[in-house]
């Protein structure tokens, strides 16, 4: 469905040092630096997939999304989405996609949300019957009943974001690009947005590509992740595999009755210790969880034990470190 082949894009950025003299100099002569935002990116995505597109700030995530949605023209490479080249067949192509840029707004600021929806209906030439069915579904699943009549300027960020997502789905697109859809949202709104993405993916078979910095988004939504850093593709595959590669460690947090003798268990390392609590890290392939707990209960009077896999956030930090990005 989506096929990217050797996409590169560079930006030309005017550069000058600080200070008045430099500013005066730049009136006559300007230095430019070329920044390679994307270097030779290739991947393909099948219909119905949810793909998490991750990378640190400035990695080129948004640039890729913008190329795929026909806004930017890449320097080299080819991109075919549903048989179209986004930037060449822009008008034909964009009927089939929905885009949400988490940091921008597509709703008209001064009029009720519903008015913006109606305008989009006309822009995309959605038949009235279809529009009614879609809008009812969107309002219900995104819980917009109470806000569609209010002007956008009076909405909270979470309410606005839910409206933005609804706005990009009015024309029933086959592909949905989400560029940081959960940025700045509280826990409840985040879960609502995630649930909704899952629903439309399952029920309507919408292909979803989302970029985010919130690893919980990725964990709860995407089976497949694509990692880029400094414009290059670094990893493309299952989240589980990524976890296996880096996240083999587990941690045990144990609370116990006061015990001043430091704990010693073979095959584990102590992350933190106090007379009432210890946090241990170990590799479950070499030391069994049950063994560790047995050792613990031999040495102290256990009150509470929690076993956790390594959080995905840590894996990403490790990954960024390994690739030096």
């Amino acid at each position: 469905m989506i096929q990217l082949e050797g996409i590169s894009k560079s930006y030309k950025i005017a550069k000058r040092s600080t200070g008045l003299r430099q500013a005066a100099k730049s009136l006559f002569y300007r230095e430019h630096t070329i920044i390679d935002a994307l270097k030779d990116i290739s991947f393909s995505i099948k219909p119905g997939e949810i793909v998490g597109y991750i990378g640190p700030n400035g990695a080129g995530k948004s640039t890729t999304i913008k190329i795929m949605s026909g806004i930017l023209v890449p320097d080299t490479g080819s991109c075919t989405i549903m048989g179209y080249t986004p930037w060449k067949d822009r008008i034909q192509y964009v009927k089939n996609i929905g885009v949400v840029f988490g940091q921008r707004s597509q709703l008209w600021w001064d009029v009720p949300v519903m008015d913006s929806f109606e305008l989009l209906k006309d822009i995309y030439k959605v038949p009235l019957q279809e529009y009614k069915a879609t809008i009812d579904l969107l309002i219900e699943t995104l819980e917009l009943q109470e806000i569609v009549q209010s002007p956008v300027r009076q909405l909270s960020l979470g309410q606005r974001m839910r409206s933005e997502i609804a706005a990009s789905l009015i024309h029933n697109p086959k592909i949905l690009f989400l560029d940081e859809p959960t940025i700045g949202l509280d826990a409840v709104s985040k879960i609502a947005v995630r649930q909704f993405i899952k629903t439309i993916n399952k029920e309507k078979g919408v292909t979803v590509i989302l970029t985010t910095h919130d690893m919980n988004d990725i964990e709860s939504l995407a089976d497949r992740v694509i990692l880029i850093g400094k414009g290059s593709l670094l990893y493309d595959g299952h989240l589980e595999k990524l976890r296996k590669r880096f996240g083999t460690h587990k941690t045990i947090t144990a609370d116990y009755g006061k015990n001043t003798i430091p704990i010693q268990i073979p095959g584990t390392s102590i992350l933190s210790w106090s007379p009432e609590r210890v946090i241990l890290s170990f590799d479950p392939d070499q030391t069994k969880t049950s063994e560790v707990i047995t050792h613990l209960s031999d040495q102290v009077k256990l009150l509470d034990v929690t076993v956790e896999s390594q959080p995905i956030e840590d894996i990403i930090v490790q990954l960024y470190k390994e690739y030096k990005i």
Partner: protein
Amino acid sequence: MKVYGSVLKLRLSMGMQYRAAALAGVATQFFWGFITIMVFEAFYEYAVQTPPISLREIISYIWLQQAFLVFITMWFRDNELFELITSGNIAYELCRPCELYGFWYAKLLAQRLSSAILRCFPILFVSFLLPKPYNMTLPPSLTTFLLFLSALLLGLFLLVAISMFLYISVFITMSPAGSLLVFSILGEFFAGLIIPVPLMPTWLQKIANVLPFRWTADFPFRVYSGHIPQNEAMIGILIQLGYLLVLVLLGRFALNRVIRKVVVQGG
């Protein structure tokens, strides 16, 4: 086509929210209208030779100017579009299945129309009721009036096409301040908004005749008062159409060029 209708509808409902602004606008326009008329009255009283346009015609000219100010001034602009371009929100506009030129043209047209509807009727109504010699007079014949209407509408289309270049220039300069100043001063001067074109020296009139600006304001207003005879008005309307065609084609070409080079950074 329906899209453009909806944009207009949305704009109208938005414009209606700003009743206070419209009222203040009406008041300002009356003030300006009176001041300008009085200045011309004084000039005409002491004129050595007969001016090329009568005071009666000038008064109609000025009231029409005030009533349709948002149809003819360059500085009446859509800040939302400027912001769209400089902030990068244009990303969304580019994901829509419409030609950007047409879409923006509709937006700009709608904005001017919605403002004008709120303002022109009270001004026209009151200006007819004013005591002589300050009152507005009816056009000499129905044909003249119809010619005036077509000229006014074409003038509006033409002005929107001209102002589109303002927005296109912002893609390159990233700030509307400069182009706005240049366009407003040159455009409004040569459209006859400061001095009616017939009162300009001949050499200036020659320049004004070559530029498209006077066809947006000066031309329709003089058609109204009959200062431009009917057969000349017909030719003028053809010239307006010609300008419109050229400017729209040129603008579309330029806009499509700049959006290919657009850079949407950040986020």
